[in-house]
């Protein structure tokens, strides 16, 4: 069963094909980028903050897509790498008094190391077993962050504050807008990296593992090696997104990285369409805005409303935003 039929797209072109569809297909990406660049100019600081968080989650969703969408490996423990990234960045800035611009890549590297370390024992796990192991990791991480032994570094249960970075070089931007553009730049970089990855040798090996691990191994794909790469890359991207998130929120605490965060990230890729990178924006928007919508529908029952919304999406559009988009554009996927 394919989760990512991206490679086998057949356009449903009829005679009127030079219509609005083609234009939309060709220009959708530049258009989306233009909208993303212009948005904060028209938005208040708070909306800019929300949009920044949207981009932060979009990066986390791209990261999970590398693991789940490309390589077919589950993870319900992405909050661990997100948290490790956030804490690393804050520690670099607050304890070592270095620039947060350095904190972000350091967060990526540390999270990648954590991801690879976790991948070693988890490599041989498949499907539901991997989901379970990552779920256990996700529930454990807030406990680990609270440990007494490392309290002087992590601030224990209280967490740590971090100052909002100043706009550098005298740019005519508010601090919020600056953070937005910084996040947008990094998000774009990771997006392009992931698209290129998918079309590389590594990407093809990952897809092969996703489709059939045994067959991939039989054809000479080093399954353990590519799974480790997928885990490491995914953790690195998640770490970067966690670092950005911590800087934007200006605060890290163990309770910000509970299993709920992992669940949100997981839902984000289901709703955006597994393995479909443009869908990450839709998934991220779901994470940022839908809890508020649910809250406004019913305060006491916001969890239930949230659950019902998820059920609606998976019942009507099992392939998420990707399916909606395909239907609008009249693109059909070949049955395999």
């Amino acid at each position, binding site marked *: 069963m394919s989760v990512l039929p991206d490679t086998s797209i057949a356009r449903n072109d009829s005679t009127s094909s030079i219509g609005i569809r083609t234009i939309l297909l060709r220009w959708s990406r530049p258009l989306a980028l233009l909208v993303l660049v212009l948005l904060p100019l028209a938005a208040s600081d708070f909306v800019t903050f929300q949009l920044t968080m949207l981009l932060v989650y979009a990066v986390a969703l791209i990261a999970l897509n590398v693991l789940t969408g490309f390589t077919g490996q589950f993870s319900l423990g992405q909050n661990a790498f997100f948290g490790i990234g956030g804490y690393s960045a804050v520690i670099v800035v607050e304890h070592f008094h270095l620039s947060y611009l350095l904190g972000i890549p350091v967060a990526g590297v540390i999270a990648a190391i954590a991801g690879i370390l976790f991948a070693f024992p988890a490599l041989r*796990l498949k499907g539901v077993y991997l989901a379970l192991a990552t779920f*256990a990791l996700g*529930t454990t991480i807030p406990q680990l962050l609270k440990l007494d032994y490392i309290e002087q570094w992590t601030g224990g249960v209280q967490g740590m504050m971090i100052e909002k970075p100043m706009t550098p070089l005298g740019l005519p931007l508010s601090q919020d807008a600056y953070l937005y553009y910084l996040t947008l730049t990094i998000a774009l970089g990771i997006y392009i990296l992931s698209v290129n990855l998918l079309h590389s040798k590594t990407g093809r090996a990952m897809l092969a593992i996703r489709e059939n691990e045994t067959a991939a191994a039989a054809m000479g794909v080093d399954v353990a090696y590519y799974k480790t790469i997928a885990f490491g890359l995914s953790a690195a991207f998640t770490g970067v997104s966690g670092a950005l998130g911590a800087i934007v929120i200006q605060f890290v605490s163990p309770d910000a990285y509970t299993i709920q965060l992992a669940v949100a990230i997981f839902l984000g*890729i289901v709703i955006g369409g597994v393995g479909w990178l443009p869908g990450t924006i839709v998934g991220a928007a779901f994470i940022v805005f839908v809890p508020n919508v649910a809250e406004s529908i019913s305060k*006491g029952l*916001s969890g239930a409303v949230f659950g019902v919304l998820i059920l609606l999406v998976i019942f009507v559009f099992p392939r998420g935003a990707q399916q909606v988009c395909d239907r609008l554009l009249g693109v059909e996927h070949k049955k395999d």
Partner: protein
Amino acid sequence: MELFSNQVLAGLATGAIYACMSLSIVMIYQAIDHLNFAQGEMAMASAFIAWQLIQWGLPYWVAFGLTIGLSFGAGFAIERSLFRPLADAPVLTHVAGFIALFAIVNSGAGMIWGFTIKEFPSPFGNGQFLGSELLSAHQAGMIGATALLLLSLYVFFEFTRVGLAMRAAVSNPESARLVGVNVSWMIGLGWALAAGIGAVAGMFIAPLVFLEPNMMGGILVYGFAGAVLGGLSSPLGAVLGGFMIGVFENLIGTYVPGAGNQLKLPIALFLIIAILRLRPQGLLGRAFVERV
């Protein structure tokens, strides 16, 4: 030595909680090949229903029986209405469905019954078991009840036609269909059974941890650990696994300096990964062979 045996005993008492949970996790895994992440919340909701029935003045055992019946029906209804239509959807969609169910049950229970903790009565009384200082009568009763539950499940699966049909539907759906087993109904029945066992677990756990919508949070992870340790394909293994996790947790807390409460969850994590790595099929489970 006395410290050791006392701690083992106390561990068995906590282990009974996990064993109950592991058993219902294994039941659903047997029926649908998935781990139901909403299992803990379903058990919690069942415990609330029992509490409500008792509040309305029903005797404990009547409420107990009614709750199992209601949960059994609810499990079946959830499978028919929510998960049957998703049967052909990718695994990820299923997990999203479980999460949705989790959110709905958790928030629904909070809405109906509130988040203040409630006392839940024990059918075995509040005293100690035979004057023991470590084991309360409830914990002893719970261990006994888990054993009884396991025995009846064993009898059901080994000696009844329906039990045989359920096993057939899981191990080879195609062939089972050919010999006239209604596979789709068997899956529904699996959900119902798992919900019923979950209800028993919820009602026995509630007196120990107090009743509230989030009571199952940590227990579910230990339940998973127990199920994995014993083997996801073996109910007996799951129960043993649950008990072993309880004992192990207690011994670590006693003998490893500084471990205490802080390291309990990390230890469960370590156990899950170590077991999955060293013996993925668990202690008593069947090895998993995939046909390509």
